[in-house]
């Protein structure tokens, strides 16, 4: 597993260098176009500076931004022991030293994400919709997937790549808009000799300014999709129970609710693409951050013979008819990892949904009163009267 992480880090470095070249190249070209050679150097400096500032923001505030924009609230272990235990179990299975902090998002759409630049400072957020629908094994599959993102350093990598992509897009947009407003006028001090040369230059720079963001995005989305497969493979290996994650993905896919607080950059951190509309769009496009859910499910379910990376790779190859997705160093993982049995008894759907509703209320500072007739009264935080009357039996409870 450690070999896999190191291999990922090497590949990540290469891809980042590639993106960096696009970034610097774009800066250079734009600068050159605006002001010749000296402009080119300034272009590179400005591009790098913008990228660096955005990176600093992402590194230091990225996790908090994700948490705030999604409306996630922290929970304590006693609020939902099962979720906390499931996360702890996955931490042990992955050999991590620190348990990620756990947050709940008040949304009906079942989804989950992981955030945090360092392993010691990571968080996992789960929506109420997810908690209410999944049983223990399925929840464990989802948590394992998210923790694999943390373990495989995906978050750090995707953030760096995302910020680069954002900077490239930003620079290209500023340039193109600037072009439109100034009517393509050249403020260059040096003569390039001949109108034809200038026109060709203009065309080249505009073409690059349009293509660079597209290339950057395609790269980013391809990386993102590959990372999702890897996280699925790691989750199957950690839990030794691919059916758990498969079944969870199935339940998530069949629900209609949508998350409104994600965008194309933060989408890769969620387990399922939060931007998919409810209609069954079978567009497996290059601009999608996640592979199609149906494929992920099929791959997980065709894992026979074991739960290690080799088994996942074989399943992947048989479903997608493409060369495998696991890097070579992960395929040295030849240990026999038999798939275990699923959990037999678990809470009923109704009690799960009710328990989840209660947790959301606790997080929102509701208070609870247990009436002796068996009814549980749930009182909103702003309720100011000093007493409440039980609607079932009429007993007066002082608050």
């Amino acid at each position: 597993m450690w070999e896999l992480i190191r291999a990922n880090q090497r590949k990540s470095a290469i891809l980042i260098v590639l993106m960096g070249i696009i970034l610097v190249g774009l800066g250079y070209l734009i600068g050159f176009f605006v002001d010749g050679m000296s402009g080119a150097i300034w272009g590179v400096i400005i591009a790098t500076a913008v990228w660096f500032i955005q990176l600093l923001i992402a590194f230091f505030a990225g996790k908090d931004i994700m948490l705030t924009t999604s409306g996630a609230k922290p929970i304590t272990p006693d609020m939902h022991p099962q979720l906390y235990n499931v996360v702890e179990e996955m931490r042990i299975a992955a050999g991590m030293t620190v348990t990620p902090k756990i947050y709940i998002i008040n949304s009906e759409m079942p989804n989950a994400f992981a955030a945090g630049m360092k392993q010691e400072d990571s968080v996992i957020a789960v929506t109420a919709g997810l908690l209410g629908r999944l049983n223990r094994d399925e929840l464990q599959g989802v948590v394992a997937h998210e923790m694999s993102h943390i373990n495989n350093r995906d978050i750090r990598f995707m953030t760096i790549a995302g910020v680069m992509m954002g900077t490239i897009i930003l620079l290209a947009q500023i340039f193109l808009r600037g072009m439109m407003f100034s009517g393509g006028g050249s403020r260059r001090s040096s003569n390039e000799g001949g109108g034809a040369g200038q026109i060709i230059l203009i065309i080249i720079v505009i073409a690059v300014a349009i293509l660079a963001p597209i290339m950057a995005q395609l790269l980013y989305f391809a990386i993102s999709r590959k990372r999702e497969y890897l996280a699925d493979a790691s989750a199957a290996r950690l839990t030794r129970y691919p059916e758990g994650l498969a079944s969870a993905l199935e339940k998530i896919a069949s629900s209609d609710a949508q998350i409104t607080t994600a965008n194309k950059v933060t989408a890769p951190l969620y387990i399922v693409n939060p931007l998919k509309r409810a209609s069954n769009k079978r567009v497996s496009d290059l601009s999608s951050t996640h592979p199609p859910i149906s494929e992920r499910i099929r791959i997980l379910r065709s894992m026979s013979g074991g739960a290690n990376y080799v088994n996942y790779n074989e399943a992947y190859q048989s479903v997608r008819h493409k060369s495998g997705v696991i890097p070579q160093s992960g395929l040295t993982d030849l240990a026999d990892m038999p798939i275990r049995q699923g959990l037999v008894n678990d809470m009923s759907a109704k009690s799960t949904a009710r328990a989840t509703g209660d947790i959301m209320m606790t997080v929102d500072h509701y208070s609870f009163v247990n009436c002796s007739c068996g009814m549980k009264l749930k009182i909103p935080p702003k309720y100011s009267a000093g007493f409440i009357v039980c609607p079932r039996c009429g007993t007066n409870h002082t608050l």
Partner: protein
Amino acid sequence: MIALWIVLGIVAILILFIVGAYNSLVRLRNQVKNAFAQIDVQLKRRHDLIPNLIETVKGYMVHERETLTKITEARSNAMNANTVSEKAQTEGVLSGLMGKLQVAVEAYPDLKANTNFLALQEELTSTENKLSFARQSYNDQVLNYNNKTQVFPSNVIAGMFGFKQGDFFEIADVAEKEVPKVKF
């Protein structure tokens, strides 16, 4: 002159490789030790949970007195075990009995409605899971470490510096051999 530089270069690369392999072996061996400590943590946690569990279910599970007594016994045996193989054996017996208990609970609807018990059951399921994941993680680490000590270039370094193979932690699940008794 050039020959000298080439030889120096080769020596430098060799040294780097040796250092790298040695460090990896040390890191992997430490991960194995760490993972083993995790198992101990979970075992202790289970020992601590059991008295509370027995208190909660005693009143309800009137037909399971025997199993409960056996569990208490198995627990003290496990707490007194010292060597790894003793531990593996006694903990295996305890795991089997806990499994039996969880199956037996199905026959007591009163117990399942008790909120205390539900919380305890979650803790028990979780403890058994954590134990099995700790073992899983430990065995994974041992495998990694053993691989590194056996694969060609690093096995030389392993031999030179005395890195020994790790042992896998096998707990025999005693319950698998018993057929659960059905009572009507």
